């Protein structure tokens, strides 16, 4: 009690001794009065706002989950052994499948990855080791490329490979999908390679390794899980794309293994069969849509599991 000004409980005594005319104290009283009168309103507003935010989360999830649920329900009933092993049959004839489209998608996506992965990882390596103007421009270019509509990439693939080869071909589709994969692979590789501790690289160099050797034997293996994540996510992104295939691979009724010819693909089946009025074709579209979702989800989840495991082992 030797210094009343520091005693938190002594405020009232203070007020008493100096009177209500102290501007600071009257101001404090006013603030407290206002705060008390607004407290209810603030609390109600907060409750309402928090409720609205949670409600929008639910509202956002409902249609998205509905898409999944509906596709699973309709898709599973379309699945059968014949669905995966037979060729398509004309509308009205039972027992058709989409085996040609499954094979086609595997081939087209394989060649797309074959084109995109070496280039993407190479660019990622370049970007991870350079902070100059060129790297900045390329990084920005990769970001912009990720936002270019896939139909525009389709036109590009058409202009580069269909116009020059003078006919539609699966390899043109692969090229289009490769362009779509590139930004994902590039950025993921860059991030993964940058994540490799500097000491590891420098230890390799100190042992007399050349940059190429260190990159190939030390840095890339250390960054491999992150790079693989990017590759898987890139393939997942490309596998579901329809627009770049519309005027490149264009689709086919038969099984084809020749990438210089038109080829069936799963997204094309969903599109072309889905817009038909025949129930069996729509059924095939649902079955293919479900298979496509399964492929895309397995790739995405696989990629995420890989990257989370890496994060845990690094952290």
């Amino acid at each position, binding site marked *: 009690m030797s210094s009343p000004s520091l005693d938190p409980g002594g405020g009232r005594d203070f007020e008493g001794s100096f009177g209500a005319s102290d501007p600071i104290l009257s101001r404090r009283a006013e603030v407290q009065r206002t*705060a008390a009168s607004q407290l209810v309103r603030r609390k109600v507003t*907060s409750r309402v*706002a*928090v409720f609205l*935010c*949670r*409600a*929008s*989360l639910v509202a*956002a*999830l409902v249609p*998205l989950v509905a*898409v*999944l649920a*509906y596709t699973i329900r309709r898709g599973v009933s379309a699945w059968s052994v014949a669905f995966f092993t037979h060729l398509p049959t004309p509308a009205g004839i039972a027992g058709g499948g989409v085996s040609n489209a499954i094979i086609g998608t595997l081939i087209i996506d394989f060649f797309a990855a074959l084109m995109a992965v070496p*280039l993407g990882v*190479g*660019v990622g*390596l*370049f*970007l991870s080791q350079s902070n100059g103007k*060129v790297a900045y421009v*390329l990084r*920005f270019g*990769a*970001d912009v490329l990720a*936002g*270019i*509509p*896939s*139909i*525009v*990439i389709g*036109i590009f693939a058409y*202009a*580069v490979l269909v116009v020059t080869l003078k006919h539609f071909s699966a390899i043109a589709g692969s090229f289009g999908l490769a*362009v779509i994969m590139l930004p994902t692979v*590039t950025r993921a590789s860059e991030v993964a390679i940058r994540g490799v501790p500097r000491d590891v690289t420098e230890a390799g160099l100190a042992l*007399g390794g*050349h*940059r*190429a*050797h260190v990159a190939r034997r030390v840095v890339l293996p250390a960054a491999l899980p992150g790079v693989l994540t990017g590759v898987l996510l890139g393939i997942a*992104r490309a596998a*579901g*794309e*329809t*627009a770049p295939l*519309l005027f490149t691979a*264009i689709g086919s009724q038969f099984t084809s293994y020749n990438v210089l010819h038109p080829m069936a693909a799963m997204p094309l089946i*969903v*599109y072309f069969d*889905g*817009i038909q009025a025949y129930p069996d074709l*729509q059924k095939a*579209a649902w079955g293919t*849509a479900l298979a*496509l*979702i399964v492929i*895309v989800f397995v790739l995405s989840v696989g990629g995420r599991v890989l990257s989370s495991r890496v994060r845990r082992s690094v952290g």
Partner: protein
Amino acid sequence: MSTTTATEKTSRIERAGRLQSRLSDPGYRWLLLVVAGVFGALLLAILIALVLQARPALVHDGLGLITSTRWDPVHAHYGALSMVVGTLITTAIALVLAVPLGLGTAVALATYVPRRLRTPLSVLVELLAAVPSVVFGLWGLLVVAPWFAGSLEPWLKSAFGFLGIFNGTPIGIGVLLAGVILAIMILPTMAAISRDVIIAIPRDQREGASALGATSWQVVSGVVLPSARSGILGAGVLAAGRAMGETIAVTMVIGNTDSIPHSLLGQGQTMASLIANEFTEATEPFHLSSLIAVGLLLLVISALVNGGARLMVRSIARSAPGVGVL
């Protein structure tokens, strides 16, 4: 004797090493530069290829391509204004629905959801962003369109018919359905990026506001949203870019009519759906060239939109961990 051989050996190794490093270090650098050059050339090639293919139409029609509404391949008239308008309307509907919902979702995911649920729900939202667009198109066409035609659109007509934007026959497929499907598709993008931007805001700021007695909503409205403003704007612009360029889902549900829609229930066409619809049927060189010119317009717009949005998002979330959805 032995010292000489050791020295000789050392110098031989040094010489070999120097030779090798002269060969392989620059070689490695060259290889990387070549790879980077190929990538840069590819980016430029997209623009150049489209310009070359679109040139005949650009020379022939000029500005008529975007000022005329008459798209009439039979009489070689190619004015894509209707599709530009269609693109703007569907994108606007998508944004009106998806931006508030996506923002609310992001805030909820970042702060208002029990900690245990945050990661699973965030992963779910990001996974849903991976659902192929053709699946949304199929669902929109076969499931949502009948419901729109039977329930929602008649109700909208009777309740809001006086506004004049819900005229026409409710048949389900049309501009409104396209906008709604687009909204569902861009929601994960909007929510995931906004969430990352919000999470990147320093914890101290939020806790400081809480300590001053702010309610949980005041923390968000007074501290979180103002700090995250430019990042959220960037997320919205990115989502808009996605909505403008989305092709196959829109093509399946918009009705594909080459004129300006008379109301939200009417049918229309976007730039992307026009290309998807007519490209393989375009036998006239001018028709094909005009379609590619529309594609070029789409390329330029989306490059500008995305470039701008990335700059915005990156400036706010540069140091943020977990900005991986881009």
